[in-house]
């Protein structure tokens, strides 16, 4: 591939735009952010992902200046922004509620930030028109926020926060209020706008699909801590913990005892059952408790016994038909229920498997990730 891959986080010469250095935030007895170190680079589309209450919004509000760290420092382009009030930061925030000013027209909403800068009239006008064009809102310039649709309001909020060309744009659940179809369209629009403007985006979301779609890197958070910071594919295919594996997408977790020889791993997972095999680059002690994480789409399902590294027999407990794919819940004699997915490449004239069928499930020794915790 001749194109260079965008990966400033792998380049030691690259200076991060934002640096969190040992940042902790407490509200009374409650620790919202627990000693976080994090670097975010210019032009990144960075996603903070986690369940509600994990601290992702607090982290973002600290970047915007609405909260100050209890301990630690936040640097923007190498400068400590702790003492800088929100209105003097080169950071704009787009709110989950959009926070459009209801008494101002779309045009005036977008011009709001530019007017505060005291730019001259012609410059403001040109910039507002540019933003209206970028977000395809020119037709609605004279309307007020309550006279346009939710999707349009979302674009106004985006145009307004981009108008001042901030170094950093913070997006708090920007697509949460949109319906599924519009949300998917808007995700691509966001990526397009991010690329066109070259602004660094930090997005907060609890929707893992959204994070995976838009982000260059994803930070998975839980209880004020960063669980993993990596590219979407690494988060999905090489999660660092059971928590991350389980939070992103669907996964089967099988607990067992490790038995390692080189990169080969045998896992004793149930009495009377052959050990499962996997490969790993990590080191496990003999008999150490480990967790095998396999994504359902990596498990094949068949009527006849296949050959392969890991082959198990079970009975179909449940079938979830999702249109493009079907998920089979297969109950093993040990009581484990394993989810296996199959793409529905043909229209169903006849289902291949049905409830209570005895089937074989199998996966290769490289299909699973083995985790220590």
């Amino acid at each position, binding site marked *: 591939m001749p194109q260079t891959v965008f990966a400033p986080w792998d380049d030691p010469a690259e200076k991060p735009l934002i640096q969190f250095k040992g940042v902790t935030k407490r509200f009374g007895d409650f620790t919202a952010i627990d000693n976080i170190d994090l670097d975010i680079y210019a032009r990144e589309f960075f996603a903070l992902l986690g369940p509600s209450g994990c601290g992702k919004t607090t982290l973002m509000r600290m970047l915007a200046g*609405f909260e100050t760290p209890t301990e630690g420092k936040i640097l923007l382009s190498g400068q400590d922004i702790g003492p800088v009030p*929100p*209105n003097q930061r080169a950071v704009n925030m787009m*709110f989950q509620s959009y926070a459009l000013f209801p008494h101002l027209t779309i045009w005036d909403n977008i011009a*709001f930030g530019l007017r505060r800068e005291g730019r001259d009239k012609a410059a403001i006008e040109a910039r507002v028109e540019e933003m209206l064009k970028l977000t395809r809102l020119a037709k609605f310039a004279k309307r007020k926020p309550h006279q346009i649709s939710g999707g349009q309001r979302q674009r106004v909020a985006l145009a307004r926060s981009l108008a001042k060309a901030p170094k950093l744009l913070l997006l708090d659940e920007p697509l949460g209020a949109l319906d599924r179809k519009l949300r998917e369209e808007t995700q691509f629009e966001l990526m397009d706008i991010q690329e066109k403007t070259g602004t660094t985006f930090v997005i907060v979301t609890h929707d893992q699909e959204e994070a995976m779609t838009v982000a260059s890197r994803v930070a998975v958070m839980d209880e004020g801590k960063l669980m993993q910071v990596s590219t979407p594919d690494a988060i999905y295919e090489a999660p660092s913990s059971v928590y991350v594996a389980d939070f992103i997408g669907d996964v089967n977790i099988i607990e067992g005892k490790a038995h390692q020889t080189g990169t080969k791993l045998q896992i004793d997972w149930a009495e009377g059952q052959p050990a499962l095999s996997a490969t790993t680059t990590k080191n496990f002690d003999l008999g150490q408790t480990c967790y095998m994480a396999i994504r359902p789409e990596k498990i094949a399902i068949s009527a006849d016994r296949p050959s392969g590294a890991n082959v198990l027999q079970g009975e179909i407990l449940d079938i979830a038909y999702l249109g493009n794919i079907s998920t089979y819940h297969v109950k093993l004699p040990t009581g484990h229920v394993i989810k296996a997915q199959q793409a529905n490449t043909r229209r169903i004239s006849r289902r291949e498997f049905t409830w209570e069928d005895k089937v074989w499930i199998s996966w290769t020794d490289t299909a699973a990730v083995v985790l220590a915790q």
Partner: protein
Amino acid sequence: MTPRLRAWALSAPALFLVALFLGLPVLSTLATTFGDPKGPFAQYAAFFDSRFRMTVLWRTMEVAVITTTISVIVGFMTAWVVAKSPARIKSLLIIAAVFPLLTGVVVRSFAWLIILGKNGILNDTLLWLGLISEPLSMLYTQFSVTIAMVYLFVPLMILTLVGVLEAIPQDLTEAAASLGATPAAAFRQVVLPMAVPGLIVGSVLVFTGSFTSYATPQLLGGERQMMMGTFLYQRAMVTFDWVGASTIAAVMVVVTLTTVLVMSKLARRLNPVAG
């Protein structure tokens, strides 16, 4: 019974009461003012010709406008503090603001007699501090009437504005800050325009209330600071000029109705989410 008929049937007792005890008396009062032998508008011509009556009308207007203005300023500042307080303190502050409303108007006006009198608390204090050498006469002035009215009406303004200010989402002021607005600019550009409808409602309440008040001007203004309410009483109960009293009542009704209509039109025009 159709739903519409049922609705009429349900409201019939109330309608009957309103018609009998409000509609009829008001109409008959108005009717008497047009029954003058010198022509239907002779009473009104006499009213607007009389320098004394016009003085009373203008004084009442002036007191009502000043009371409204001070109540807006004091009420807004207080409501802002209340709206921004944490929940527990907020309910305490609201109770404190509403507390005076639990006692009667007469009692509250009377309190000012004690404060502002010749041997009142204020004069005693000023004498003791040596700021004045003899007691000031503060009672029965426009000042005493106005200060008591402000005291009377500020709680109403606070209650109205707390609701309005609380309804302005914090997101909006934060968004303004994020877009580079200083706290003062965010207040001017976002909070104030959004509070306008509440300010108008509060102003209408205070203006009509103070324009039509009776007990406070009677106790603190007396004969010297006659206002429309006290003037009307005097005409009706002292000189038994019922037609003259009715004319005063009609003028008051017109002034308050006009204020309400103009202000509600203005409110609709300035409503942040309309048009």
